[in-house]
């Protein structure tokens, strides 16, 4: 009995969600619990967060899900794949902390991520 109780108390409860904070260009904060496995882009689109267009639907073909990642998160994110920087060339006001949110898959590592949405997407 003790063991069963111990198991109950000490097993971390699996949380299927991770918290992502989206900040729009006019400084509105959206703290959203996004299901792990979705992309940061999908989290925004499904929750009606303004400013992420995602015209191509996540194919890394349009650069309209462009976000700025808070500096201290840059190294913790999955590295850019070939082609992401090519697309970012076309984005509206790309900076060094620019990413395409369709390429950021939500996981434990991204829990707490903060992204800023640019003034516009193109």
């Amino acid at each position: 009995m003790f063991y069963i109780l111990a198991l109950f108390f000490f097993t971390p409860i699996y949380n299927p969600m991770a918290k992502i904070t989206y900040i729009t260009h006019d400084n509105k904060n959206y703290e959203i619990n996004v299901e792990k496995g979705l992309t940061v882009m999908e989290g925004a689109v499904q929750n009606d967060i303004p400013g992420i267009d995602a015209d191509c639907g996540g194919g890394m073909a349009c650069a309209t899900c462009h976000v700025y990642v808070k500096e201290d998160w840059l190294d913790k994110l999955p590295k850019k794949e070939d082609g992401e920087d090519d697309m970012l060339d076309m984005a509206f006001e790309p900076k060094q902390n620019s990413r395409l949110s369709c390429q950021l898959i939500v996981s434990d590592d991204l829990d707490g991520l903060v992204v800023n949405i640019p003034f516009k997407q193109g």
Partner: protein
Amino acid sequence: MNKTDALIIGAGPTGLFTAHQLKLIGLDCEVVDNLDKIGGQCIELYPDKPIYDIPAVPECTGEELTNNLINQIKPFDIKFHLSERVDEVKKDGDNWIVKTNSGTTFQTPNVIIAGGVGSFEPRKFPVKECEKFEDQSVFYSIKDKKMFEGKTITIFGGGDSALDWAVELSKNSKVNLIHRRDEFRGAQATLDKVRQLAKEGKINLLTKFQMIGIKGENKLESIDIKSDDKEVKTLQTDYVLGFFGLIMQLGPISNWGLNINKKTIEVDTEKFETNQKGIYAVGDICSYPGKLKLILSGFHEGALAARACFKLARPNEKYRFEFTTSSKSIKERLGVKSD
């Protein structure tokens, strides 16, 4: 005035297959597209990327899919109006009067919007004041290169258009080529050429810079650029060219009195008709419960919208469902022999 049974807006895969379906059931149609070529997103965004979910086609690229669809409509005489954007759709009795930005007009009972995410437009500079100089000294495409002879041209971008024009214009003009990072995505051979010309002093190559300001009273005088290291430079220039690719914009479609929700048009799932009688929406641009943005869904939607067009185009005739394998009249339209 062009009279037609149905006008299709958009020459992507859905628009092309819808044209096929219309012609197959004996209606005529014309197609308008803002791009200068047929194929829509398939040809503009991912011509080389493989697609794996076209029924009965295990793998094909966007370009191959487009070419196959063009082949499929070869038996038919379909007029394409490329590099034209539909600006106006107005009701006129039982017809719609449709006008493009080049002044072409159509009279038709059926308008099928197969517009994807809207029309492709060039991406512009983030610097707001650039608008003031647009089409005078700031350009996003080149129609006549002669105007640049002997002038100073500043080109922005890192793809083939930027590199190609930098090489070409450096023959007769002073060229600055500016890109936001060291890597370019254009063809290696052109890039080598650009680097060679930069070494010879024929192209002034500045990387990790972006435009932050543009100056001039009536005429463009100079631009300010800023580097990643916050260094600001002012460049005297006569012309500025920006090559940042294309972006899709809903544009005039939002003014046609349609129910639009999140940049898509609401339709029914029987005819794919919008809230306006005789205007249909198919492919990525339409929305209904359960909508999937797949090419195969667009084909289905186009096939049904085409049948709906029949009723308005031939009010005194009855549409009869037929198979291509057995229908004599369909085979005649296709120009193939009947058994």
